[in-house]
């Protein structure tokens, strides 16, 4: 639409938020017809680096506190980041669970092809924590750079199991099943949100932040499998 006085809000969000934020964006625009919300979904660390290099945007949502901290340290945000949502690991298996995986321990059994995230990325560090606390040592076939790559291996039938976030397993729909496991609670991942210091639209940014942290946000996020604080 080309209303006069169209305003644009730019949101930089972790890639795992793609579906839920797309929907939230639509709802927000419905409430503010003069606002166009632009999303850029990328890995949190890339976004953090871009903000440090002077990227101008209004809102940043990181998939982990670490990358948010980088931006905070660089003086990139106004106010204090708040936790927007949480996410926990689950075991994604191909439909029908051909390898018959029922627990985290099953993943360590020989002959199973298991794919996880690399320790450098948030889902990988969560995996490490679960391994440590449960004492189960995994022998993954691959340590992927992002959680979607893990999921892709599972949906393609190339892995017997993959450790992904609950939200990712959910987004796969029919192509994957989730096997939840209790040890996952040892590594709950938090998604901090903050308004950026150089925000061209600080007012709108605050409104958007309030909106996603409010009831609408909570509803959509939990629909997609996120936990809410």
């Amino acid at each position, binding site marked *: 639409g080309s209303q006069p006085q169209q305003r644009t809000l*730019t949101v930089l969000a972790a*890639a*795992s938020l*793609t*579906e839920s934020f797309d929907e939230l964006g639509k709802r927000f625009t419905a409430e503010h017809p003069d606002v166009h919300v*632009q999303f*850029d*979904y*990328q890995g949190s660390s*890339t976004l953090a*680096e*871009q903000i440090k*290099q*002077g*990227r*101008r945007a209004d809102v940043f949502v990181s998939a982990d506190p670490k990358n948010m901290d980088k931006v905070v340290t660089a003086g990139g945000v106004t106010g204090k980041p708040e936790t927007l949502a949480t996410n926990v690991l689950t075991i994604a298996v191909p439909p029908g669970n051909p390898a018959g995986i029922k627990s985290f321990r099953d993943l360590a059994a020989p002959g199973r092809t298991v794919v996880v995230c690399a320790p450098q990325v948030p889902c990988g560090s969560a995996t490490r924590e679960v391994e440590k606390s449960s004492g189960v040592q995994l022998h993954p076939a691959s340590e992927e750079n992002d959680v*979607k790559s893990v999921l*892709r291996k599972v*949906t393609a039938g190339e892995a017997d199991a993959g450790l992904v976030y609950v939200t990712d397993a959910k*987004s796969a729909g029919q192509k994957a099943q989730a096997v939840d496991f209790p040890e996952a609670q040892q590594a709950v991942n938090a998604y901090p949100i903050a308004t950026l210091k150089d925000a061209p639209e600080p007012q709108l940014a605050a409104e958007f932040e309030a909106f996603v942290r409010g009831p609408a946000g909570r509803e959509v996020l939990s629909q997609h499998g996120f936990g809410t604080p």
Partner: protein
Amino acid sequence: MPRVLWAPAALALAVVVLPVSGLFTRVDPARLPTLLLSPAALDALRLSVYTGLVSTALCLVLGVPLALVLARTRVRGLRVIRAVVLLPLVLPPVVGGLALLYLLGRTGPVGGLLDVAGIRVPYTTAAVVLSQTFVAMPFLVVGLEGALRTAGGRYEQVAATLGAGPWLAFRRVTVPLLLPALGSSLVLTFARALGEFGATITFAGSLQGTTRTLPLAIYTAAESDVDAAVAMSLLLVVVALVVIVVARPRAVEGQL
């Protein structure tokens, strides 16, 4: 041509054709129109073709002279320059994007100056073009330089004896003789620009209509819907094929 060579040639073709054809059998034809005609896909297509053409043109205008310098002059340290030109080839594109960001970002030496002048390059369509130019340039330079080395020199001399200055000889003799190589180099350059992902997403970000080219859109789509990503790849492939099949015959297959 030795007959034996048909076997490896067929195998080479298979290496390319089998995976690609397998891929496209997976696309659900019923969903195809919806996937391809979505505003996101069309915006991405438009942006990709536009930036791809602009950056190919940039590579042409800047790269041809560089190839000439490399092939025709005897400056000290030419070998080092030649190696440097190849760097974007081996640099992972993401690192290339970081490099551009460090140079032209607000805190970068050049970006800082531009910022004062009120010009901001990162996260604009110009940044997409720059990323693509950066990664695609070596394709043009290397391809042309080889061709320039094998042919041309003697004909340029003939042109000089007919009174043609360097510029005329270049336009009327060197360029036409170079056309086949230029054609294939341009195809490679354009293809590389069209497929560019890592440097673009790092340096230009990924905003629909401004910086989200087809590969970026495919990547974004792949996060949620692999089928959509594959369908969009199909779009990219078709665009590339059209460009190649339509543009190439004259430049490349035309007998010289």
